[in-house]
C-alpha cells in the first residue's frame, strides 16, 4: 500500500506535466507540418538549436524573454531552410530532416566552443531562466499539495497546454488552419481555388519552427536553466512518433504526449524500487510502442463490428434471402 501511495500521488502528476511539456510543445509544432502534408523528422534539431540560442540570447540580453525570442528565431531559421529545401526544391523530407538534426548537433557544439570556450555545457554565466508562475489564490483554494498541480510552473508549461485548445480552434475556425488541413489532405482542391500550396506549406513549416523553438527554449530556460550538447535527448523523435500516429490532431497529440510523459515520470519512480535502470528506462518507449500497436488494432472498428455480426448471425437462425437482401450473409 505504501509503495502504491509512494508511486501514485500528486507529485507523479506534477512530474507528468513537467515531462509532457517539452514533447507537447514540439509535437504541436510538428502538427502544423503533419497537417500540411509534409513530414518533419527534423524537430529534434530545431529544438536543440533553439535551446542553445535561448541560452545565448538570455545571456546577451540579460532577460529570459530575450533568450526566448532569440532561441525561437534560430529555430525559425532552421524551419525556413527545411521549407526551402522540401517545398521549393522537393528534396526528400527524411534526408533533409536528418541532415538538419546533424547540423544542429554540430553547430551547437562548435558555437559553444566559439562563444563560451568550453565543450559540453553552459551553466550559470548569467543565464536568466524563465520565472515560475504562481497562480494567485491557488494555494488557498486547493491546499498546498493540490495547488502544485496547477501553479508554480514556468510560463511555457501553460503555453503548451493552452496551445492545444488554441490549435483546435485554429484548425476548425480560422482560415489559415483550414487551408493547412486542405493542403495536407487534398492539395488539388486548394490549388483549384487559388490557394498557394507552397505558401501554406511555408507558413506551416514556420509555425512548426515557432513551437519547436519554444520547446527548445523551454528545455534550456524553463525546465532547467542550462545548455548541454544534445540536451533534446530524443524528445523530438518521440514527438515525430506521436505525430505519425495522431495524424497531427491536437487532442490526440496531447493524449500521446501525456501517455509518454506519464510513462516517463512513472518509470523514473519505478527505478527506486530496485528494477534495473536499463529496463526501466525502456518503459516509456515500450509503452508508446504497445499503445501504437493497440491503436492500429483498434483502428479497424468496422472489422470488429463485422466479426461481431458474424458471430451474432452464426448463433441466430438462418435468415431468409429476403431478409438478407441489404445485409448479406457473411461467408462462413
Amino acid at each position, binding site marked *: 500500500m505504501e509503495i502504491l501511495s509512494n508511486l501514485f500521488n500528486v507529485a507523479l502528476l506534477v512530474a507528468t506535466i513537467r515531462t509532457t511539456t517539452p514533447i507537447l510543445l514540439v509535437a504541436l509544432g510538428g502538427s502544423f507540418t503533419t497537417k500540411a502534408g509534409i*513530414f518533419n523528422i527534423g524537430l529534434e534539431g530545431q529544438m536543440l538549436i533553439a535551446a542553445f540560442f535561448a541560452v545565448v540570447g538570455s545571456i546577451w540580453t540579460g532577460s529570459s524573454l530575450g533568450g526566448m525570442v532569440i532561441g525561437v528565431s534560430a529555430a525559425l531559421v532552421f524551419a525556413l*531552410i527545411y521549407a526551402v*529545401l522540401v517545398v*521549393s*526544391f*522537393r*528534396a*526528400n*523530407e*527524411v*534526408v*533533409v530532416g*536528418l*541532415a*538538419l538534426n*546533424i*547540423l544542429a*548537433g*554540430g*553547430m551547437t*557544439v*562548435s558555437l559553444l*566552443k*566559439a562563444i563560451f570556450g568550453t565543450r559540453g555545457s553552459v551553466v550559470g554565466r548569467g543565464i536568466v531562466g524563465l520565472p515560475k508562475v504562481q497562480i494567485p489564490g491557488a494555494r488557498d483554494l486547493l491546499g498546498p499539495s493540490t495547488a502544485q498541480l496547477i501553479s508554480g510552473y514556468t510560463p511555457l508549461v501553460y503555453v503548451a497546454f493552452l496551445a492545444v485548445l488554441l490549435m483546435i480552434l485554429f484548425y476548425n475556425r480560422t482560415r489559415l488552419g483550414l487551408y493547412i488541413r486542405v493542403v495536407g489532405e487534398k*492539395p488539388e482542391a486548394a*490549388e483549384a481555388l487559388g490557394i498557394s*500550396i*507552397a505558401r501554406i506549406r511555408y507558413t506551416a513549416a514556420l509555425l512548426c519552427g515557432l513551437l519547436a523553438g519554444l520547446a527548445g527554449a523551454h528545455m534550456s530556460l524553463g525546465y532547467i536553466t542550462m545548455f548541454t550538447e544534445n540536451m533534446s535527448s*530524443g524528445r523530438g*523523435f518521440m514527438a*515525430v*512518433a506521436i505525430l*505519425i*500516429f495522431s495524424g497531427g490532431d491536437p487532442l490526440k497529440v496531447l493524449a500521446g504526449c501525456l501517455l509518454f510523459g506519464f510513462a516517463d515520470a512513472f518509470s523514473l519512480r519505478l527505478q527506486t524500487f530496485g528494477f*534495473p535502470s*536499463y*529496463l526501466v*528506462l*525502456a518503459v516509456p*518507449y*515500450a509503452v*508508446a*510502442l504497445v499503445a*501504437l*500497436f493497440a491503436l*492500429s*488494432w483498434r*483502428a*479497424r472498428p468496422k472489422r470488429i463490428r463485422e466479426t461481431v455480426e458474424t458471430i451474432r448471425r452464426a448463433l441466430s437462425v438462418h435468415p431468409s434471402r429476403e431478409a438478407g437482401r441489404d445485409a448479406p450473409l457473411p461467408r462462413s
Partner: protein
Amino acid sequence: MTNRLLFRGLFSKGLARTLAGQALAFAIALALGAVIILMIEESPVAVLMTLMRGAFGDAEKIAGTLLQTTPILICGIAACIALRGGMFNVGIEGQLFLGGFAAAWVGFAFALPPVLHVLAAMTLAVVAGALWIAIPAFFRVRFGTNEVVSTILANYIATLLTSYFTIFLFKRPGGWSETPPILTSAYLPELFSFSRLNIGLLIGLALAVGVAAFFRWTSAGYAVTMVGSAPKFAEYGGVSVRRVGFGVLLVSGAVGGLAGGVETLGVHHRFMEGFAPGFGFDGLIAALLANGSPIGTIFTALFFGALRAGSLLLEVDTTASREIITVIQALIILAVSADLMMRRRGDRTGERRWKF
C-alpha cells in the same frame, strides 16, 4: 512521333541537368563549408587537403576509410532493401546493436571450430536483426501500423536492452561496460596486416552487388520492386503484397543485424555499451541519397566513410574540430538532397518516391 523525340530529348537533358545540379549542390556546400572554416581561422584549402590526406593519404588511411565505410554500407543496403519494397526501416540502428550483441554472445559463450564459429555467430546476428523487426513488420503488413514510428521506438529499446544484457548479465569482470572478448575462432579474417579492415567490407560489397542483382535479375526481386513502386498493380498481378512486405522488412532487419555482427566479429571483438552509434542513420541517409540503389549506396557510403576517416586526421593536424566536419557533412547532404537544378521548375506534379 513527336513523343519519341520529346522523350529522347527529355531523358538526355534530364541526365545532364541532374549531374550539373549535383555538382552545383556540391560546390555550394563546399563554399558554405569554406566560410565556416574561415570563421574558425583555418585555411579551407588546408582543411580540404588534410581531409583528403586523412581519407586517402596512404594505404593505411585508405583502409581506415574503407573500415568506416563498411558498417555504413551494410546498413545502407539494409535501408535499400526496405526502400525497394516501399518501406522505411528507421530501426537499423536497433538491429545493428542486437546483431552486434548476438554475435558477441556466440563468440564468447561457445567454443567452436574457426569457420563454423564465425558462421554461427553471423547467423545469430542475422536472426537477431530479423526478429527485432518482426513485430513492427507484422503490424505494418497486417494493420498498416506505420513502420517509421515503430522502428524508431524499437531503436531506443534495443539500445537499452543490449546495455542491460551487457552490464547486468554478461559483463566482463573488471572491465568497462562490455562483454568478455570473443574467442579468436570467431574473428573475421583481416584483409591487411596494417589495418583492422576485414572481410566485412567484402561482405558488404558482395551484398550490394547481390542485392542489386537480386532486384535486377530475379523473379522475387521483380516482385519486391513492384510491391514497392506500385502495390496495387503487384496485388492485381498475383503478388502477395503482405507476404512480400513482411519478407522485405525481415530481410532488411536481418541485414541490419548482419552489420552488427560484422562490427563485432571484425572490429571490436566484443560487444560494449554504445558500440556503434549512428551507423544506422548514416546508412539510411546514404541509401536515400543513392535513391535506394544498392550500387549507388556503395559510393555514398564510401563518401561518408571518407569524410569520417578524413575528419579523424583533421582533428589532429588542424585546429578544426570534428563538429566542423559534422557541420560540413550536413551541409553537403542538404545541398545534394536539394538537387538544385532538377527541381527548380515549379511544376506541381512532381511525384515523391516515398510516402509517409
